[in-house]
């Protein structure tokens, strides 16, 4: 009898443990999330031209009716330090989203770049618009949540994920380039600094004044750019500039001069060696349906002897 009671109690304890583990997992997966345009974008860089920018931030409450404590609100602030449970004295509070707004599930608010604490409380006298500076900010949020999800348990403060806002007016280092000659084209190979996101290539006919941007490439996509549409036997000056994620441009790279020239592919080489194939184009392929027609004819022949 006593053993039976003991067994029953053990079973009940095990069930409660599993239930609390399950609810804790559920509540941990739910909460309030911050993001920029999409959930994947958690960092924004801006430069001196963006001082009047208002950055839009999305919030999503996935703890609707479960987990969030009654009358909680979401406080959002920016800090130059790591996010804490509440805003510090040198942080700038941007928004308080009420519990009734949170119950809508999703919403947005804006952050004025010029109001970020790096400019407001900076002891270095940095103003938005100052060149050659990089200042990182964290956009933080906090709300109160029922930690276990079990009715009656205590409410605790929970932080949202943090977003990065980086003021960056440091220009990237100029890329180094080499240029290979091709047929009506130049192949520009480049080495860029790690903060470079896009390489811009400019050319001009030697003797003319203005460079024209002829091509650009995201550095994640490769390490060379083909500049096409050039004229063979004309000498071009070529240079490149790096652009970082904040839109800062480097100084010009070293200048190269190169002359696109006629090249021979295999066909050119074959013809130059005395080969006689005149490459009749698609007209020679028109006979192929003949082969297929023969195959079909034989198939039908067996079915209808």
């Amino acid at each position, binding site marked *: 009898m006593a053993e039976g009671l003991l067994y029953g109690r053990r079973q009940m304890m095990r069930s409660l443990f599993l239930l609390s583990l399950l609810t804790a997992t559920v509540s941990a997966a739910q909460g309030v999330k911050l993001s920029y345009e999409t959930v994947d974008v958690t960092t924004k860089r801006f430069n001196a031209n963006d001082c009047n920018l208002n950055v839009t931030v999305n919030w999503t409450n996935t703890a609707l009716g479960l987990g969030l404590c009654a009358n909680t609100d979401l406080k959002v602030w920016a800090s130059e330090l790591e996010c804490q449970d509440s805003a510090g004295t040198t942080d700038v509070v941007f928004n308080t989203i009420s519990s009734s707004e949170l119950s809508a599930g999703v919403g947005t608010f804006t952050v004025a770049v010029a109001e970020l604490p790096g400019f407001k409380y900076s002891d270095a006298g940095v103003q938005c618009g100052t060149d050659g500076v990089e200042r990182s900010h964290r956009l933080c949020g906090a709300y109160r949540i029922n930690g276990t999800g079990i009715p009656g348990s205590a409410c605790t403060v929970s932080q949202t994920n943090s977003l990065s806002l980086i003021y960056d007016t440091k220009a990237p280092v100029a890329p180094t380039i080499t240029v290979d000659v*091709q047929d009506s084209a130049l192949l520009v190979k480049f080495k860029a600094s790690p903060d470079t996101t896009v390489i811009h290539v400019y050319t001009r006919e030697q003797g003319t004044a203005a460079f024209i941007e002829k091509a650009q490439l995201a550095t994640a996509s490769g390490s060379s750019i083909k500049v096409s549409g050039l004229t063979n036997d004309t000498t071009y000056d070529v240079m490149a500039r790096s652009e970082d994620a904040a839109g800062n441009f480097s100084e010009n790279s070293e200048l190269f001069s190169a002359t696109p020239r*006629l090249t021979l*592919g*295999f066909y050119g080489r*074959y013809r130059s060696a005395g080969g006689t194939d*005149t490459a*009749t184009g698609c007209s020679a*392929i028109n006979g192929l349906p003949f082969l297929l027609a023969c195959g079909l004819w*034989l198939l039908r022949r067996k079915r209808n002897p």
Partner: protein
Amino acid sequence: MRFFGLIAALLASHAFAGEVYGATEQSFAFEFKLGPHRPLIDREFPGVGDAGLDPYYRTFGPSFMLMGEVEVDYQFWRPFNVGSLAIGLAVGYAEKFGAALDALTLKPVTESTGLRIFPIKLLAVYRFDFLAQRFNIPLVPYIKGGLVAEPWWIVKGNQTEIFNGRLALSSRWGVAAVVGLAIQIDFLDPRLARDFDTSAGVNHTYLFAEWSMTEVNNFGQKDENGKPIGLDLSSRNVFFGIAVEF
């Protein structure tokens, strides 16, 4: 020697096993094969290797293309029940890339150039499967012969090459002859082979090797001086592959 002994033992054991299967009708064969391939483009040019004008060797070097080919045969007749006669359609693809040349200095540049070929063959196929069917000796020799149409195109950089106003794209015609030997591997697991037949309709499975000879030069077309006209895409090569009959 030990390997050949093992093969002989396997064949002998299979020959006397007396397994009879083939539950479903057999009308088709499907082959997938791979093999080294080098068209004989250079044979019309004087000189050999670095001393010659041979454009293929000097562009692509001595290494081979890898040719992949699939073939579907329709087995429409079993003459005297000693083999199957089929009509087959095979399509393959191979490409080879090398460096283009500066037209003035003839030195390689960073631009690439490539030859792409797409042989299409209409074949008559005879498989002598009498030994396999009658005596359970799992060796099936076969021969094939037929017509070849071989579209080709040449790229320079990332587009089809144009030289002297000609787009490097065309097709060549020719003939093909193939001899091969297939090993019917059903004997490795007769029960699985039987299940494969009854459930999927696959009668037999083979591994094979074949030697292929093609003359793809528009049937030997020549100019008034006896010089071949056009790109010679003839070849001699070996294929290895897997086949099923169903």
